[in-house]
C-alpha cells in the first residue's frame, strides 16, 4: 500500500514538474494584454 501511494506521489510530482516546464518554456497560455493606446478604438486616451 505504502509503495503504491509513494509511486502515485512520485508520478504526481513528476507530472506537475513537467507541466510547469512545458507551460513555462513551450506553451504559455496567452494572457489578454492590457489595452494599448491609440487609433480610434475608443480607449479614451485622447
Amino acid at each position, binding site marked *: 500500500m*505504502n*509503495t503504491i*501511494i*509513494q*509511486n502515485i*506521489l*512520485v508520478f504526481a*510530482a*513528476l507530472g*506537475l*514538474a*513537467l507541466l*510547469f*516546464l512545458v507551460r*513555462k*518554456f513551450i506553451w504559455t497560455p496567452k*494572457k489578454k*494584454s*492590457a*489595452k*494599448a*493606446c*491609440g*487609433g480610434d*478604438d475608443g*480607449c*479614451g*486616451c*485622447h
Partner: protein
Amino acid sequence: MSKQINVALIGNPNTGKTSVFNALTGLNQKVGNYPGITVEKKEGICKLPRGVKAHIIDLPGTYSLNASSLDENVVIELLLNKTDKDYPDVAVVVSDVENLKRNLLLFTQIKDLKIPTILVINMADRMEYKGISLNLDYLETQLKTKIALISTRKNKGIDKLKELIATHKELSIEPCLDASTIDKAYFDNLRKAFPNQLLYKLWLVITQDVNFGKTDRKTFEAVEDFKTKSKTDLKRLQQKETIKRYQFINETLKLGQTIDLKSAKDLRIKLDRILTHKVWGYLIFGIILLTIFQAIYDWSSIPMDFIDSSFASLSEWTKSTLPDGAFTNLLAEGIISGLGGIVIFIPQIAFLFLFISILEESGYMSRVVFLMDRIMRRFGLSGKSVVPLISGTACAIPAIMATRNIESWKERLITILVTPFTTCSARLPVYLIIIALVIPEGRILGLSYQALTLMLLYLIGFGAAVGSAWILNKILKIKSKSFFVVEMPNYKLPLFKNVALTVLEKTKAFVFGAGKIILAISIVLWFLASYGPGDDFNNAETIVTEQYASENLSEEELNQKIESHKLEHSFIGIAGHAIEPAIRPLGYDWKIGIAIVSSFAAREVFVGTLATIYSVGSDEEETIKNRMAGEINPILGGPLFNFASGISLLLFYAFAMQCMSTLAIVKKETNSWKWPMYQLVIMSGFAYIVALVAYQLLI
C-alpha cells in the same frame, strides 16, 4: 471603506524616486513586470490622511516624454491611456534640488497632459551645502502646482507630501505653457482633425520614435483632413518645443531659485578628477572589483557551508523519519537537494547585490560606466554593459536582466548574448574539483598554480565575452541608434533602507524566479536517474549480487555497486551511453557524459551527479575527489581525470551554454527562441571544438 487612488511616481533617473517610493510604502511593495514586456514594475500601498489609501507605482526613470528606450515607453503608455487600471489620479514628479532645471522639463510635459501633478523637490538636505535657496511660493504660482520640499535621507517633508496627495483634487490641471505656439498652423490643423482629443497627447503620439501599442504615425496619415509632417520636420519641431520649455524654466528659476556658489562646498569635482582619471580611474576600479570578489567568496563561505550542511541534515532526517519508498527518495534526493541547490546561492547573490547597490547608491557606478564606455565601444558594447558583465560573475540570470537600461537594441542584444561567457558562481564547484585533480600544487612567485589556473579561467571568460561581442558587432546587421548618455549623480552615503530593500528584492527574484525552474528540473532529473527500462534496471539487485558473489563484498559495498548498476541502466544512464561516442574524443567516459547532460539544468549539478555516479557516502567532496582520481580510462588505461581530459573539461565548461535557466531568461528578454538557440548551438559547438583540440594536443 477607505477610498483608493492611483499615484504615479515619475522622475529623471537619480532623483531619489525609489527613496520616495520606499518612504511612502515601506515594506508594502511588490515588484513585477509590465504585461508582455520585461520592464520592472514596482508598486505599493500607502495610507494617507483623511482615510485615503494610495496605490503607488514607481515608474521607470525618464528624462522626458520623448521615449528612447523600453523603460521610458512604459511611462508614456501609462500617461496616455486613460482606460489603464493604473492610470494616475495624481502624478508625483520627483526632482533633485541640484538639477531642478533639467528635471522641470519632464514636469512641464506632464502638466500639459492635464493630469493633476505634484512637484517633489528631493534632497533638500543638500541645499545649504550647495548654497541653494528656493522661493517656493513663487515656484508654485509659476508652475501652477503644489510643491513638497523633502529629504528622504533625513525623513523630512514626507508627511506634507502625503497630505498633498490626499488633497490632489485641489490641484490645478492648467498647463504651464502653451506648446502649440511652436507651429500654430500645424497644431490648428491637428485640433481640427481631432477635435475631441487633447492636443499634447496627439503631439506625443505623432512624434514618438518608439511605437507603443497599436499607435503609430500611420494612424494619423490615414485621416484625410490631416497631413502630418516628415520625420525630419517633426524632429525640428520637437527641438523647438524643448527650447521653448527651457526658456520658460529659465525664466521661472531666475526668480524662484538662487545659487550662491561662494557658500557651496563641493568635493565632487575633486573626486571625479581621480575616479574618472584614465589611469587612476581604472586602477581604483580594479582594486574595488578585487575587494568585492574576495569579500563575496570569503563572506559567503560560512553561510553557504551552513546552508549546505542544513540541507544535508534535512535530507538525512527525511530519509530516516519517513517510510521507505520512492516518494521519500524523491523528497530527500530530488526536492530537498534541488531546493538546497537554489538556497545555497542566496549568500553570494545577496552579497553581490549588496555591493552593486552600494556602488549605485553612492554614485560611483555612473563613473564606472563612463570610464568603461571608452573601452567597450570598440567591441560593440556600451559602457552600461559593464554592469551585466560584472553581475555575470555571480549569475548570468540577474546579469541579463540588468541589460534593460541599455538603450540601443543592438548593444543590449550583444550584451545579452555574450554575458553567459563570464564565469558564473555555478561554474566554480566544477572548476575547483577539476583543478584540484589535474593541476599540481606547486607555486610560482608565491602564487599557486591552482589559483593561477582559476584566475586564468575567469580571464578566458571575460576575453570570450569581449571577443565574441566584437564579432557580433561586425556580423549583426541591426539598425539601432547608438548614443551614450549617463548622468553623474552626486556622491552620497548609501541609504541603508534602499540598499536593504534592493538586496531583498533581487534575492527574492532569484529564488522565486530561477528557483522554480531549477526545482522542477531537479524532479525530472531525479526521475530519469531513478527509473529505467528493461531487465538490466529492474533486476539490478539479482544481477549485481550474482556478479560479485565470489568477492565477499560488505553489504554497503554491494549496495553501492547495485546503485551504480541501476544508474548506468536508468534513462539518464542510457542517454549517457548514447552520447559516449560523441564525447570520447574529448577524453570523457559515459559517467562524465551523464554529468554533462544533467548539468544542463545548472552547471553545479555536474559535481552532484558525479557524486551519485561514483556512489559516494556523506563525506562528499573529499571522497568524490579520491574516487575521481582513482577512475581509470577504459580505453587508454591510466587515470581518467588526467591533465589532458581535465583541461578539456575546464575549457568545455568555460565556453559551453550549460544552463537552461539562462536560455529561458534570454528567451524572455529577447522575446524569441531564435537567440537562445543560437547561443546554445554556437557556444556549445565552440566549447566542443576547443575541448577536443585541447585534449588531442595534450594527450
